């Protein structure tokens, strides 16, 4: 009997049902070890973040003279002014262009490919699927030298396009895996009934598969978008001019230039994280659940 209930729950029970279960863990004895560890790790995470923020408002002389864990009595914005005057608005724009330019086409073509892989038959699509799965196991950074050569041959070296094209390609395998898992969960009967109503593949794609896989689309957009926004290796190798820098690369060279001026370096860290932090505050729920919806399956 118990086994039967279990199987039914795990087969048909959606997340909604599972989330609404009684607070069994909470009402019985508290989880001391997990709780202790949770709060301890929170402190380990929070102290450096607190330190970055308060230090970024100190002047350099004050930084050396005062207790590093106390906020400044005379906060200053000079560090932030220095960062903004060091061309950071341009780097921010570069990062936005690269991230949007890579993530939109990448998610779109991955979605098309996943739909074809799930709905189609034949050796060609099976082969394409295995190719993408293989791509998951390979550390794509290892292919950076030939990518560098290809980008030079295409005449794209030292342009934002040089970062965008490989970023699109590197994001495909994981996107296809997550998206095809979700499309596979759409009941076959829905596809069949749309087909008997005379809908072609493009119509089922947009009117059925697209709305039903929206959570997975959010997952891959956020996950790969964050990866591209924070990417360091591709800009480092495929660009050269200061005006083509994206934010992580700009941070690194700013740090090289002002390494002794700790408050200014930390102000650059805060300023480059701020846009993502604002997005996080706005879409926290969506982001946290979206980030792992495809992994916890």
């Amino acid at each position, binding site marked *: 009997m118990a086994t039967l209930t*279990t199987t039914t729950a795990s087969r048909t029970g959606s997340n909604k049902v*599972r989330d609404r279960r009684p607070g*069994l*863990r*909470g009402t*019985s004895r508290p*989880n001391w070890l*997990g*709780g202790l*560890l*949770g709060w301890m*790790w929170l402190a380990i*995470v*929070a102290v*450096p973040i607190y*330190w970055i923020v308060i230090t970024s408002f100190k002047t350099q002389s004050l930084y*050396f003279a*005062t*207790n590093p*864990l106390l906020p400044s009595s005379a906060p200053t914005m000079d560090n932030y002014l220095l960062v903004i005057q060091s061309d950071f608005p341009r780097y921010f724009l570069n990062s936005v262009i690269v991230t949007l330019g890579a993530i939109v086409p990448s998610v779109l073509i991955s979605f*098309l490919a996943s739909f074809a892989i799930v709905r*189609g*038959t034949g050796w*060609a*699509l099976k082969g*394409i699927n295995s*190719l*993408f*799965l293989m791509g998951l196991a*390979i*550390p794509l950074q*290892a*292919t950076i*030298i*030939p*990518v560098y050569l*290809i980008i030079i041959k295409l005449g794209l070296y030292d342009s934002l396009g040089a970062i965008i*094209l490989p970023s*699109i*390609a590197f994001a*495909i395998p994981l996107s296809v895996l997550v998206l095809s*898992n979700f499309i596979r969960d759409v009941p*076959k*009967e829905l596809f069949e009934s749309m087909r*008997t109503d005379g809908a*072609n*593949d493009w119509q089922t794609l947009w009117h059925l598969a697209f709305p039903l896989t929206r959570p997975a689309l959010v997952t891959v957009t956020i996950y790969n978008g964050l990866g591209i*926004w924070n990417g*360091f290796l591709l800009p480092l190798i495929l660009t050269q001019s200061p005006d083509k820098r994206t934010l992580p690369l700009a*941070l*690194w060279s700013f740090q090289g230039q002002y390494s002794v001026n700790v408050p200014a370096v*930390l102000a650059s860290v805060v300023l480059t994280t701020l846009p*993502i932090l604002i997005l*996080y505050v706005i879409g926290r729920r969506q982001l*946290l659940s979206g980030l*792992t*919806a495809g*992994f*916890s*399956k």
Partner: protein
Amino acid sequence: MTALAPVGLQSTPAGHLRGGTGIRARSLTWMALPALVLFIAFGVVPLLGVLVLSFTSWDGIGAIRPAGFASWRAVLTDPGLPHALWVTFQVMALTWLVQTPISILIGTFLAGHQRYREFLAVLFFIPLLLSSAAIAITFKALLDPNFGLGAGLHLPLLAQDWLGRPHLAMGVVIFVVSWQFIPFHSLIYQGGVRQIPVTMYEAALIDGAGRVRQFFSITLPQLKYTIITSSTLMIVGSLTFFDLIFVLTEGGPGDATRVLALDMYKRGFQANLMGPASAIAVILVLVGLALALLLRRLGGSTTASQLEGV
């Protein structure tokens, strides 16, 4: 008749599929084409290209000349290679050992539904948003023996030359990796724990199983596939800790934290020896593939379980 049948009651789905399979298959294959072309151009071709380049000599700017096994001979006889492999393995094993138990415990804890856990989660997941470059720069400043937190607090224990001594530097790398990724893996485990059917815990409670017993007899075995997913991400991901280590230590002090990916970059883009760097890259790919196969074997068929939605 078929058209009027309600959804879910349709008889022979196979019969529907048969009709016009040829046209359908072709139009569907077209849909996969853009992704395929881009992945071949920037994934498959470079993968084969790196093997080809390992048999050439190239300085990154001039002409590419065939060089036979010269690069391979140079790389395989260089004591730097076993060292880089050992460092890579250490980073992989130690980051896994530190992250997995902590992530499972925190994930299990966060899976509960009290309000304050949500509050905890907000702060907790900020490291997920930061770039490796930003994190490395922060800890570099924080741990600086002259300008860092330790010097400011006048605590000699904290004011050590963290990144200047081989063993300490390795410890710092492990710690910073954990700082960056434990929140992400906790989140994966939180999702995994929430999917465990509550009836299993109810049954265990009736049988008189305590909290610890429940954790080891239900939570941990039920998390099997989550553990495999998370470990695969950790282990294959550890091969690509390039940016963090590059900014934090540049492989130093000496070559104490020079992992394979960093070794490849330094040979190729700093010493301008693309041939040997490509040979290192081939080794990196082989290590990644071997690990992925090993993990798949250990865990049974992971993809099959994902298809079933378990």
